[in-house]
């Protein structure tokens, strides 16, 4: 079971995403941004960081990298894709997910342990969770405010495509307290908080994030 983890210039949490994949007993395969080959991986993680320094807009330049062309194509064929933080921004810029992420409403970078409610446990990345479970995962971003047109928000809510919602306060002004969403087929998920930093109580606020990486192993194995 191989999960690809992409590195763009400026990517920061790739090592951490790879570690989470290993903790879930799968093989993490590093994918270079300039290489349009996915090297036979079963799923892809687009990790957090500041790809291209957040120049122009977060993720605006990374979405045009050769590897992303291959990711978009693979996603079209049902490959599970997870976008974390900057990765979520890249997936939105690439059109794999609707909406966009804008500057935190309080205008500061925010790093905090954030409670989230899991509201969809049918996606490729969340089957290991109980519906309605509240998990504690680090959030660390300056541009985490999720926005979308009203029609898009209605569709997401109506179709149950909000996967994670902020509870106990909205840290960044995201509309409808949306922390993470999924594509129509439930295979592509994007979220602002960092599950890869909640895999071990030694280094994070909980190990609640591990479930996401274990879920995708199930999704691939059972495919």
């Amino acid at each position: 079971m191989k999960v690809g983890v992409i590195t763009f210039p400026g990517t920061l949490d790739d090592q951490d995403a790879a570690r989470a994949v290993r903790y879930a007993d799968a093989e993490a395969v590093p994918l270079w941004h300039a290489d349009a080959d996915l090297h036979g991986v079963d799923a892809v993680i687009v990790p957090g960081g500041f790809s291209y320094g957040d120049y122009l807009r977060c993720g605006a330049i990374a979405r045009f990298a050769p590897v992303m062309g291959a990711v978009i194509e693979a996603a079209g064929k049902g490959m599970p894709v997870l976008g974390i933080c900057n990765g979520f921004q890249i997936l939105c810029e690439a059109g794999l997910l609707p909406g966009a992420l804008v500057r935190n409403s309080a205008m500061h970078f925010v790093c905090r342990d954030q409670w989230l409610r899991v509201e969809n446990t049918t996606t490729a990345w969340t089957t290991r969770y109980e519906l309605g479970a509240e998990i504690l995962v680090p959030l660390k971003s300056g541009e985490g405010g999720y926005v979308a047109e009203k029609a898009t928000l209605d569709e997401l809510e109506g179709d149950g495509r909000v996967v994670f919602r902020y509870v106990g306060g909205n840290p960044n002004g995201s509309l409808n307290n949306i922390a993470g969403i999924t594509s129509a087929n439930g295979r592509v998920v994007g979220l602002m908080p960092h599950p890869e930093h909640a895999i071990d109580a030694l280094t994070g606020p909980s190990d609640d994030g591990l479930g996401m990486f274990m879920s995708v192993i199930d999704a691939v194995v059972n495919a």
Partner: protein
Amino acid sequence: MPKPEILDPQGQAVAKALPRLGFEGVTEVRQGKRFELEVDDSVDDEELAKIASSLLANTVIEDYTVRRVDA
């Protein structure tokens, strides 16, 4: 520029700061971006629109206008 319905906290911060500096009468501030491109004759309006909409602006959250300025 950010679309009208998009929250613009940076613009709001600027609007709040003005009265503190003694400037009255400014009711709203929106903050956007300006790009200056030097182009040769082969780049027509259609292409500029494509450049704007596919890269310079995120049309989900931003509106754009293109204006030619002679050298």
